[in-house]
C-alpha cells in the first residue's frame, strides 16, 4: 500500500511524525511525499523498515539518523543529507550540498549527481557512492567505510584520514595531509564491485584509484610537526 502525504496541506512535523510511527511499526510500508518545497529535516530519524520517496528537492538534514529505511529524493538535497545515518539506503537523484553523509555509521548513501564540499566528513562506517564529482575537504577525518566517486574530487581529499577507504575514478585536485594513493588489492576490487552494483553505477572497479591513510598522524611525532 502506498500512502501519499502532500506538504502543501500536511505540515512538516506531521509528515515526520507519521513516517517515524510507520517506521517503528516495522511494516515496511511505502510513502510518497509530494511538494517538499525544499523543507528542512524531512524523513529524519526513521528507525525501522520503510520506503519513502520525496518528489522534489529537500533542504537541510534530509534523512538524518536514518536506520533501516529506504529514502529517495527525486531532486537535489540541501546540506547534511543522511547525516549520522546508521543503516538503510538514501538515494539522491540530483545533487547533494555540503557535508553529505557526515559522521554516518552505516548503510548506503547513493548520490546520482554531484556532492559539494565536505562529503563524508568524519564518516564512521557508511558507504557513499557519488556518481558525479565531490567538493573540497571530502572525507576529512573519515574513520571507517567507503567513499566511491565516479567523477573528480576537489582539494584536500581525505585530510587527516583514519581507516576509511576512498575510491576515485577521475582526477583528485589535491590530497589532504596524511592521505596517499594506495595499492588496489583484490579485496578492494571486490568491495568496489559490490558497491557499484548496489548503487547502479555504470563503472568498472579497475577504473578507480584507491586512497587511504599514511597513518603518520595517528600519534604526535615531532618529525611531522609541519603536517599538523
Amino acid at each position, binding site marked *: 500500500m502506498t500512502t501519499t502525504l502532500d506538504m502543501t496541506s500536511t505540515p512538516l512535523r506531521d509528515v515526520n511524525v507519521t513516517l517515524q510511527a510507520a517506521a517503528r511499526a516495522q511494516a515496511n510500508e511505502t510513502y510518497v511525499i509530494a511538494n517538499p*518545497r*525544499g*523543507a528542512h529535516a524531512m524523513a529524519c530519524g526513521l528507525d525501522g523498515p520503510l520506503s519513502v520517496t520525496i518528489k*522534489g*528537492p*529537500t*533542504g*537541510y538534514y534530509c534523512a538524518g539518523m536514518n536506520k533501516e529505511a529506504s529514502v529517495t529524493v527525486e531532486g*537535489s538535497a*540541501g*546540506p547534511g543529507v543522511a547525516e549520522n545515518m546508521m543503516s538503510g539506503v538514501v538515494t539522491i537523484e*540530483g*545533487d547533494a*550540498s*555540503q557535508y553529505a553523509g557526515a559522521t554516518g555509521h552505516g548503510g548506503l548513501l547513493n548520490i546520482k549527481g554531484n556532492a*559539494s*564540499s565536505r562529503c563524508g566528513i568524519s564518516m564512521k562506517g557508511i558507504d557513499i557512492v557519488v556518481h558525479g564529482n565531490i*567538493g*573540497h575537504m571530502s572525507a576529512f577525518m573519515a574513520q571507517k567505510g567507503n567513499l566511491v566517486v565516479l567523477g573528480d574530487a576537489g582539494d584536500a581529499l581525505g585530510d587527516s584520514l583514519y581507516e576509511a577507504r576512498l575510491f576515485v575514478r577521475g582526477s583528485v585536485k589535491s590530497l589532504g595531509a596524511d592521505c596517499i594513493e594506495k595499492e588496489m588489492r583484490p579485496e578492494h576490487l571486490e568491495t568496489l564491485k559490490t558497491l557499484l552494483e548496489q548503487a547502479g553505477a555504470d563503472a568498472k572497479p579497475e577504473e578507480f584509484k584507491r586512497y587511504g591513510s599514511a597513518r603518520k598522524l595517528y600519534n604526535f611525532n615531532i618529525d611531522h610537526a609541519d603536517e599538523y
Partner: protein
Amino acid sequence: MCGIVGLFLKKDDLRPKLGDMLTDMLITMTDRGPDSAGIAIYGDGAEGAVKITVQSDAPQSAFAGLDAELGAALGVTPEVKVVDTHAVLTLPEAKAAEAIAWLEARGLRIMGSGASMEIYKEVGLPKDVAARFGLREMGGSHGIGHTRMATESAVTTLGAHPFSTADDQCLVHNGSLSNHNQMRRKLAKKGVMTRSENDTEVGAAYISSRIAEGASLGEALEGTIEDLDGFFTFVTGTKNGFGVVRDPIACKPAVMAETDDYVAFASEYRAFADLPGIEAARVWEPEPATVYFWER
C-alpha cells in the same frame, strides 16, 4: 546566519512581477534572518537623471517640504517619492553630489543612489518590512534582497543590507569578515569612506573602490577572495546585472536556478519554491572561490 535572495530577469514580460517574486523569496528566508530586511531593486530610470534613496526615522517632518528646500538649494526641484521611512529623489545627474552633501548635512541617511537602483531596508521581520515599502508592487529588471541575523554590528537600519557604496552598486552578504577594520583603514587612506561599523559595508566599499580603479566587476569579485578574510557568500548588484562569489571554505550555503526567463540566487532552495517553471530549472550550487555574473 543570514538569508540572501537575488533575481535577474532575462525577459521583459516578467518585469512588473519582479517585486512580487522577490518578496516571496525574501519572506521565505525569514528563518535565516528575522532582525531586519532590505532590498535593492533596479527599475526604470530617466536619461540623465539620478535617483537618490534616503531614510529618516522621522519621515513626516524630514520629508515635508523637502522638494522645495532642496530645489532652492540646487536651483532645480527634485521629484520626491515618499515610501514609508524612505524617499526617492529624482534629479539631474550633474546635481547628484551636491544634493547628497545637502541631504547628509540635513541629517538624512543616504541608502544609495544611481540611474536605476532604489534601496529599501529597515529593522523588523521581512514580511513587515516588505509590507511597509509595498515591495510586491515594485517592478524592475533585477533585484537582490537580504534577511539579517546580526553578528558584526548592531541591529539598526544602517546595519541592514544591501549596502551601496557607489552609484548603482550594492552588496548583500551571508557570513562575517574578520579583517574588516584593517580593510576599512586601508580604504580610508585611499579616501574611500564607509558610513557604518558594519563588516559588509567594507566589502561593498572594497568592490566599489576596485571598480573605480578600473577593475571589471569580475576582477573586483575575484579580488575579494584574495583580500577579504572571513566567511562570505556575496551577491552584488550593478546597473546591468548581478554577481555571486563565495569564499574558498564555502560554509555559507548558496543555490542557484536558471531558466529561459530568469537567473535566481538564494541561500536555500526553499526560496525558489514559488518561482514559475522552477520544476524544470537548472539548479546548482555555486563553486567555492568562483565568480559568477550575469549582465544584460
